[in-house]
């Protein structure tokens, strides 16, 4: 394994944030039939940082992705932006905590926890900012049940990329 410095880390953080941001914007622009169901594929970039870089780098990738995306789509400071930012931050924090704690979850489990906390945080913040908390309670099943499928999907995609990426980096 060749020695790699700080610039290497910054480059990859920037690249992952940019990839996450691009996926996020494309997802935002595609019309979703149900407003609360989105695959959340941008989380792939967060998972890659979580597994291939330092776990805390996942938080940087996740937060900078939302900030950049909001600036590019002109949503900075809106209610939707605050909802996205809180969801992304808390789900990244939970995933970092699980990865660091050494709990016996695979990337699928970590991704599912991320999806769960993303949905729960967004519901909670939306309940405070836009709807009433009471109304949001009834929306919970329709947000959480699809997150099983999206969490597994995102985990699987991230796994495929990590396995291939690792092979590449070792032949460096």
């Amino acid at each position: 394994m060749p020695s790699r410095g700080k610039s290497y880390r910054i480059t990859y953080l920037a690249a992952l944030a940019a990839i996450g941001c691009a996926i996020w914007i494309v997802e935002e622009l595609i019309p979703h039939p149900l407003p609360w169901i989105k695959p959340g594929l941008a989380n792939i970039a967060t998972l890659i940082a979580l597994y291939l870089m330092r776990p805390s780098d996942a938080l940087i990738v996740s937060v900078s992705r939302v900030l950049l995306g909001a600036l590019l789509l002109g949503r900075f400071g809106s209610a939707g932006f605050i909802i996205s930012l809180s969801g992304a931050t808390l789900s990244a924090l939970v995933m970092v905590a699980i990865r660091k704690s050494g709990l016996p979850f695979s990337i699928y489990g970590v991704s599912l926890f991320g999806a769960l906390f993303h949905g729960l945080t967004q519901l909670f913040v939306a309940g405070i900012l836009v709807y009433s908390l009471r109304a949001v309670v009834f929306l919970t099943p329709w947000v959480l049940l699809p997150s099983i499928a999206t969490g597994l999907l995102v985990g699987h995609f991230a796994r495929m990329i990590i396995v291939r990426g690792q092979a590449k980096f070792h032949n460096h």
Partner: protein
Amino acid sequence: MRDICKHYWTVDKKLLKPRAFDLLPIMLIVTLAIIPLLPNRGDTSTFIIITPDERIVLPAEVDTVITVESAVGPMEIGIYAGKAHVERASCPNKICVSMGEIHNPGSSIICAPGRTAVICIGEEEFDAVTR
């Protein structure tokens, strides 16, 4: 140069394969999703219609048809034989219309684009919502 990235780009293959433990978050999500669906015990139910600008409280016993202004246009809500349903909506998806009738305390019809909800509640919950 200081090798700060020594542990980068390698990950234990075992961490990537699905494990039995991954069923735990799935069960957690299913449990959390089912809790709001459980019917609450309540003798008399009341319907509350929440729109972007107002809250309307309607008793379940009286049959009515009411038109409210949602964020995406007018929405017609009917209460018939103790059950509420959305008769007509202005949104393109019409998810609220296809949700059918509700009558159990705890059940609801929510139109997210219209920021409008019809919620059925039992008597003791009444204060918590209208306050």
